[in-house]
């Protein structure tokens, strides 16, 4: 009957490790500029929040997959095995919507994760909250120090935007290389 052979998702693991590394590097660099934290602290923060969003995404997919309707599962299988989406789903509509929702979801999740990690790793919270009256330099500094949480989410948006762009670029290059093959 069907062949008995174990198929290992090695490409997925390697690609995800690569994307995680790139995302962590870019986001850590952005945090370093925005928050003025130490390099290693930035790396740990961005690594942690990226891991949270990755693990959350995986558990969402793996948990929901058994309850998917047949044509959704078929689309998922097409995507995993053949990098294609067939079935009744229109890819040109689904993909941008899905990408945008993922971006927003990731942003929200990472913001929550960052607040959580700042709370449990309190000794070195990245933005030190000064009293507004102590800051007399300029508006930017005052803005940075007064509304930390808003500033934090702006920095996170920037960092996520850069890393998303980089990963998208890498995917495009991969797609192109695949196409040439």
């Amino acid at each position, binding site marked *: 009957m*069907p*062949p008995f052979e174990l198929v290992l*998702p*090695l490409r997925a693991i390697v690609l995800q490790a690569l994307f995680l590394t790139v995302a962590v590097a870019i986001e850590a660099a952005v945090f370093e500029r925005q928050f003025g934290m130490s390099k290693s602290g930035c790396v*740990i923060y961005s690594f942690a929040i990226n*891991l949270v969003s990755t693990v959350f995404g995986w558990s969402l997919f793996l948990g929901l997959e058994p309850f998917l309707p047949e044509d959704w599962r078929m689309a998922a299988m097409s995507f995993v095995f053949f990098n*294609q989406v067939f079935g009744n789903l229109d890819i040109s509509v689904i993909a941008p919507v899905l990408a945008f929702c993922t971006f927003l979801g990731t942003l929200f999740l990472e913001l929550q994760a960052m607040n959580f990690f700042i709370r449990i*790793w309190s000794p070195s919270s990245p933005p030190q909250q000064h009293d507004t009256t102590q800051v007399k330099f300029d508006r930017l500094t005052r803005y940075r120090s007064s509304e930390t949480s808003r500033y934090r989410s702006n920095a996170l948006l920037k960092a996520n935007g850069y890393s998303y762009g980089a990963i998208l670029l890498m995917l495009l290059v991969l797609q192109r290389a695949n196409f040439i093959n």
Partner: protein
Amino acid sequence: MKTLLQSFWQSLWGMLRPTSFYSWQTSLWMSLLAWLLAQAARAPEQVKAPISVHDILTSFSWMFLILAVGWLTAEQPVKLLGQNLGPWITGSLVCLFLFVRGDYVLPKVALMTWPMISAAIAAFPEFIDIERGFAIPSKLRVRQNLCIMLLANLLLTSWITFGFRINDWLVDYPGIWGEGFNSSYFIMQRSREDRDFARGRNIVQEMEQQLKQNTTFKTQSEVERWLLDNQNDPLIFRDSVMNTLANRRTTGDRLPRFQDDSFWQLETLVSEPTYNNADYQVELRARWIGPRVKEAGHMVKHTCIIDFGSSKRASINCPGSIIVVTNPNDPDSAIIPGAEQEEVIEEEVIEDLEAAPLL
């Protein structure tokens, strides 16, 4: 030779000899002792008790072995990229102890729980404080490392679960094997072999069986009726073929039914006979319409000829072998599974899928 053996024995004994009562060697010897006692306590003729002395002693042996390995790897860490791998070795032993033993074997559960169990083993020493007993670590670096380690092991669990999930898909939908995985970003490339088309071939064989059952010794009009019915209503024919296959599968090896029945399109094409002395030529095709690389999936087909002879009764035979067309838009992709490759298949242009009209 003798001195070599002697020195080898001495170094081995020097390593395994307990230096003090509290050492990993003691634990290892305890494990060995428990195992020997368990062997002695084995009584095969006895009525199976729910918990026997043998089982208890074997469990003790396992626990001491786990303790010994954990202790050894804590004393002499095995490091890879600065990360101590000891807890993951100990964790694999714990998973084997918990899930893969004699009467119940759950390799899936064992592998899926392995990262988290190992992470718990790795984290445990950090929570032990000499003065306060159990305490949440106060050092920032330790806290950060614990969080990262927990998350990384969750990611590892997701990867392992995903690996199992795609293998489950391949078991449930065996037709997927017939497509190439070359463009996938998730799994490694592999070259397709004969057995990857086994599902399609089984279907075509069953189609052939049903053709023979339904038309042998029938008159020409009855045969034409059957062929026309199949062309008008291919779903009925498919259900009949798939149900027969599924029944054979469940009675044989007690396995659940494949779920890819609806992903196969079964076609019976009647065409002008190319063989001499044949009245009809029927091409039986199973076309994969499930998840696939190109819009046209792979196809398995077999040509049968129907001959009415002098008795005016149908006799069916299917010369040639079953052909797999991996890419229906490209006639050169036809391959014949099995050894008999000497026969050169002259594939007609496949574009004219409209067969010669019946009747």
